[in-house]
């Protein structure tokens, strides 16, 4: 088994990407896009600005110079450079950054693609449109639907920008030319080229809607824990990871044992089905690919305005010394929800404050689960404070997304499933829409929206990068209003993201949401899974309990290939009973061992190897074909004479070291024959077939053989 990490994770929106070689098959684990890199581009200019921008190069535009910025930004890396300003951003049709080095792998040699979350498939159309791509794509049905909606949304948002810039440039856009790149401020250059300058090749112009459609047609959708079999060898199953609706962890079972692939997982989710770790038990190898705690440790220092950071320190560790599985389980079950709920309540209270002050709230949060919960939370808070403020969802796929969340109880958490069983809608948004509190529109220019529009209001709208989609327009509208509020996820570099909207009077709240397994839960989890081999990111520190680990750990880091020795060089074989009945057992001289030749047809079916009788014609008798040991000549003589063969023994002279010295039996009755016996070989010479075979059998009886 070989494992190559192509990209370690970058939070919820940019899951890690790996390549796994197993049983001769190459498996690509996820194919995400780094959408946070979009921040190096300029957003769509607002309507008023757009008209003023006639010149292709906005560098000469009038609002330049660092003086515009209210406060000098504290930057660590950028020591001498002047602070960034909005005009440093690349003013061009954005390209999209895929996983670095993925393009170095030959696409046609990928056999299987496993998609663990909707976010993990955003880069897939780039791959699936390549000629020669023939891999089987497995994705859960819920992730497929959500992923498709996200991609369609991306394409439609991009279209808006595209219309501004006109038809596509012939080959490489101006900004990608070296001269231009050199002029970029270092922080932007880092994003564009990567820290070591090796990521230029991962930029791509966005795929088309047709590419998305084509990609989705190639994907095979799986139900929850559905067993699927690749090439009769690998049995692949998806179990919920809890991160998002449809997000999953994988088990891959081959003839050489099982692998559990753990992506970012959440033990207690408030919307998606919880991390099903019990189902991952019994796999020899565990690939741990949850990098979320890496991001969590770099705590969020956010915030332009006078807001308290929202990070709560819940680091008080629970007692986990005891390794008892039961205790481990209880540790895992400690509710993450409580903390997440507090965050939501916190956000909600600020939303209410803003609305009360007459400001509007923009929530360009990309996490579906957070949006659904915030909707419920905020609407409840509004009711409590008796406020009549409309909530809008403005997204090209919003309506479908909401409708979809209400028809997949199979991928939701227990509490939501209970709603199904009691006949209530799965999420609060169904009633909000019915009651006229929530309005869903495909775009800001929807006529109905214009008629319905009312401020202050609360708007959920993509895109979280603040470069695409309706969010840009709302931000441009409200960025000067000090009563308005912007809620961001922590995965964004706020400085860079808000650059084009400066000066910002708007309040900004950046919040980190749980997006994976907390580091202190890793060890208890492993105690339950009990793998023999663990693949663990080098960057993460495994908190070791007192007990020495019962498994070997391989640490991996990006762009290095790990070779993991196979745990067993033997695989299971099932032998049909009717075949087993015909066995002709032989006991060896040394005792304890008996053996038989077996012959049949090997079938590989559903990851199992089965030997069945097949239509091999039975040979009349089974002869020994392999012998070992050395024959006892005197015994041979007795056996021969027992079969009516007479001859004389001519022993080789003793003491001669040479192997070639042969003893011989000269047979003269019933006819002439010669048996030449050496240390490691015997040669039978006879004129008749019959005699030769009798002699052969006699030799067989004094040797071990099969």
């Amino acid at each position: 088994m070989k494992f190559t990490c192509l990209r370690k994770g970058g939070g919820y929106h940019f899951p890690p990407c790996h390549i796994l070689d197993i049983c001769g098959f190459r498996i690509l684990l996820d194919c995400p896009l780094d959408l946070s890199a979009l921040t190096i581009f300029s957003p769509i200019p607002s309507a008023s600005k757009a008209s003023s921008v006639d010149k292709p190069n906005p560098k000469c535009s009038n609002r330049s110079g660092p003086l515009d910025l209210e406060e000098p930004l504290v930057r660590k890396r950028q020591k001498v450079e002047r602070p960034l300003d909005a005009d440093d951003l690349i003013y061009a049709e954005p390209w999209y950054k895929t996983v670095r080095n993925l393009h170095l792998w030959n696409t046609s040699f990928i056999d299987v693609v496993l998609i663990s979350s909707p976010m993990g498939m955003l880069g897939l159309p780039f791959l699936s449109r390549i000629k020669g791509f023939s891999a089987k794509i497995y994705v859960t049905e819920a992730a497929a639907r959500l992923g498709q909606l996200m991609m369609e949304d991306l394409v439609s948002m991009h279209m808006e920008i595209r219309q501004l810039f006109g038809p596509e440039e012939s080959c490489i856009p101006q900004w990608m030319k070296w001269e231009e790149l050199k002029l970029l401020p270092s922080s932007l250059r880092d994003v564009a080229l990567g820290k070591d300058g090796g990521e230029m090749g991962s930029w791509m112009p966005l795929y088309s809607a047709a590419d998305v459609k084509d990609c989705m047609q190639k994907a095979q959708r799986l139900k929850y824990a559905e067993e699927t079999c690749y090439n009769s060898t690998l049995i692949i199953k998806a179990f919920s990871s809890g991160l998002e609706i449809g997000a999953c962890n994988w088990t891959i079972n081959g003839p050489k044992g099982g692998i559990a692939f753990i992506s970012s997982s959440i033990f207690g989710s408030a919307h998606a089905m919880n991390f099903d770790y019990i189902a991952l038990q019994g796999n020899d190898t565990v690939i741990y690919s949850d990098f979320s705690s890496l991001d969590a440790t770099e705590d969020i220092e956010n915030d332009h305005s006078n807001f308290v950071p929202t990070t709560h320190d819940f680091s008080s560790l629970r007692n986990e010394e005891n390794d008892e599985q039961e205790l481990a389980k209880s540790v895992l079950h400690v509710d993450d929800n409580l903390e997440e709920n507090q965050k939501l309540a916190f956000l909600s209270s600020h939303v209410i404050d803003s609305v009360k002050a007459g400001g509007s709230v923009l929530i360009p949060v990309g996490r579906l689960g957070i949006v659904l919960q915030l909707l419920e939370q905020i609407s409840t808070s509004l009711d409590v404070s008796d406020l009549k403020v409309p909530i809008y969802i403005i997204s090209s796929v919003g309506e479908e997304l909401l409708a979809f969340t209400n028809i997949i109880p199979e991928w939701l958490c227990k509490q939501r499933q209970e709603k199904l069983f009691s006949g209530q809608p799965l999420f609060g948004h169904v009633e909000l829409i019915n009651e006229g509190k929530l309005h869903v529109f495909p775009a800001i220019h929807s006529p109905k929206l214009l008629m319905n529009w009312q401020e202050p209001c609360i708007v959920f709208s993509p895109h979280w990068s603040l470069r695409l989609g309706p969010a840009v327009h709302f931000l441009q509208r409200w960025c000067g209003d000090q009563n308005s509020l912007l809620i961001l996820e922590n995965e964004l570099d706020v400085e860079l993201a808000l650059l084009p909207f400066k000066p910002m009077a708007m309040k900004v709240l950046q919040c980190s949401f749980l997006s994976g397994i907390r580091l202190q839960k890793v060890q208890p989890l492993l105690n339950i899974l009990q793998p023999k081999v663990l693949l663990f990111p080098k960057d993460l520190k495994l908190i070791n309990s007192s007990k020495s680990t019962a498994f070997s750990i391989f640490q991996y880091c990006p762009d290095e290939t790990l070779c993991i020795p196979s745990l067993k060089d033997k695989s299971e074989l099932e032998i049909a009973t009717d075949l087993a009945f015909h066995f002709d057992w032989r006991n060896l001289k040394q005792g304890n061992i008996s053996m038989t030749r077996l012959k049949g047809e090997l079938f590989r079916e559903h990851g199992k190897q089965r030997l069945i009788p097949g239509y091999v014609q039975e040979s009349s008798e089974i002869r020994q074909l392999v012998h070992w040991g050395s024959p006892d000549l005197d015994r041979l003589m007795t056996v021969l004479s027992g079969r009516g063969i007479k001859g004389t023994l001519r022993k080789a002279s003793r003491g001669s070291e040479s192997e070639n010295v042969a003893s011989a039996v000269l047979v003269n009755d019933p006819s002439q024959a010669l048996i030449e016996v050496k240390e490691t070989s015997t040669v039978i010479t006879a004129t008749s077939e019959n005699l030769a075979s009798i002699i052969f059998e006699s030799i067989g009886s004094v040797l071990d053989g099969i």
Partner: protein
Amino acid sequence: MAIDSLVLGAGQEVGKSCVIVTINGKRIMFDCGMHMGHLDHRRYPDFSLIGPNFNQTLTCIIITHFHLDHIGALPYFTEVCGYSGPIYMTYPTKALAPLMLEDYRKVMVERRGEEEQFTSEHIVECMKKVIPVDLKQTVQVDKDLQIRAYYAGHVLGAAMFYAKVGDAAMVYTGDYNMTPDRHLGAAQIDRLSLDLVITESTYATTIRDSKYAREREFLRAVHTCVAGGGKVLIPSFALGRAQELCILLEDYWERMNLKVPIYFSAGLTRQANMYYKMLISWTSQKIKETYSTHNAFDFKNVHKFERSMIDAPGPCVLFATPGMISGGFSLEVFKHWAPSEKNLVTMPGYCVAGTIGHKLMSGKPTKIDLDKDTRIDVRCQIHQLTFSPHTDAKGIMDLVKFLSPKHVILVHGEKPRMATLKGRIQSELGIQCYDPANNETVSVPSTHYATAVASDAFVQSCSNPNFKFSTSGSEHEQGSSSSNRKSIPRLQVSDDRVAEGILVMEKNKKAKVVHQDELLVMLEEKKHQVKFAYCCPAHIGNLQENQETESTGLPLSSTNNDMLQLLSAKLTNELSEVNIQDFGDHLQVESFRVSICSKEDCPYRLSDNGGEEHYEPMFFCCSWAMEDEKLAWKVISMCQK
């Protein structure tokens, strides 16, 4: 090893489906239904036959769908009899079953005034024990037992269940439909290797035609009735048929621009529609695709019906529960509407013997005696809707043929028809088939594999291509281009991969399968090669003479080569299936090697030849291994000629 199936219900009858299957020590109860036609102890399966302690003897219960003849006895079994183990059913079944059970309980207790078998709390408690499953979700019930649901189409959430313990596997179909209907898709299952299939056989001998004609007939009947100011009563269960017909009517109403109200009795069916909306992904492809724009279960023309509206004037269409007019509200409405000839009663689907629905369908009664005191004049029209969400005989045969199990057990059907179907399955498909009566046990053998570990070399050798080239003499003659008119042999290539290896059993160790070449390494022994050799004399006088006249003065070695060539040609002629390799000084066929021996004292030359020959014989020195014994002697006999 065997699979034992104890049929507790639906054996040679329809109603109270319940089969206890024992596979490799695991006991599964498939369905736990009640019989609608009986009111005494016969309404429930005879649970006493399971054994004294349900919790110890049963591994789990699997419910295929929410119909009462499949789930009706479940609350009784769990809450009254005390079963507390796991129960599996699909999400929709878990969501909808309580509605059905509650509806039934109400009818029994509140309307018929019977002693209740279980309470509302019992239903709630019972449903708490249910573990919902998704389609195709592979559920590991315990270490050995694996179950999986497949789409059955019969009603929303109906599933066929696959169960596997060790190497033995079986499928219990429950009720299923092989053709899609208005709101559900057709049954779908993987090709599995199975020891046993237990299938329903409601329509064991019926072959049904297209549904569209019958749908048109139904719509026409309804339309005619409402156009004439009549009322249409459709007694149906809250779930399933009601939604299907409603989709049909809704569509028709839109097209014909009808304004006649469609009613659903009480809240039940309306609430059911709420469930249907959330469970839309379990419906047919067509309905599923439209969920985001218009949920097909948002019925625009459907209104709620109040009891006071029974005698209100004007036409209407009413869906009333329960189906089969077995009591409750549908009976109440029937009492009011039956005496008017303007009205129409449409009976959708199967009616159990003993119900009014059954009486209406089996003839045209003018009077029905409800009980001693009540007699209803039936003057209304009766329309029988013959489409049913059960598969027909062709569907059953198709499914059995597709799955090709080793054995089939028929349940949920009528005795004589089942016998016919059983005969067909045995004669047409060659599959052993049984149709046990209630409380009978059928035992069928199950598959079992012995396991061993196989070495890589063995597995690799198995997948090595094993090409056999054989030339079959063909009639094709080459054209006249060349003088030698060789027939072109047609080359046939076969690749029968054969797995050959050695199974080694050592005490206290797992059986191992290794390749022949690995064996000695494993045993740490030295190989002792046993070979054959024979330097065989050949009487080739004539040949040699010809040879010499043609090529005088050639060196001896060259002559030897020629001889080999000659032999090679001869062998090719005689042994068409072997591959002869010519190495110049020797020929090789498999392990058989032959060369011209010029040594006078070849050790493998036996002076057995009587000295009768006058020519100096040529000697072909041959050696071979045991595998090619037959071949070797064949060649030798040819050499000697």
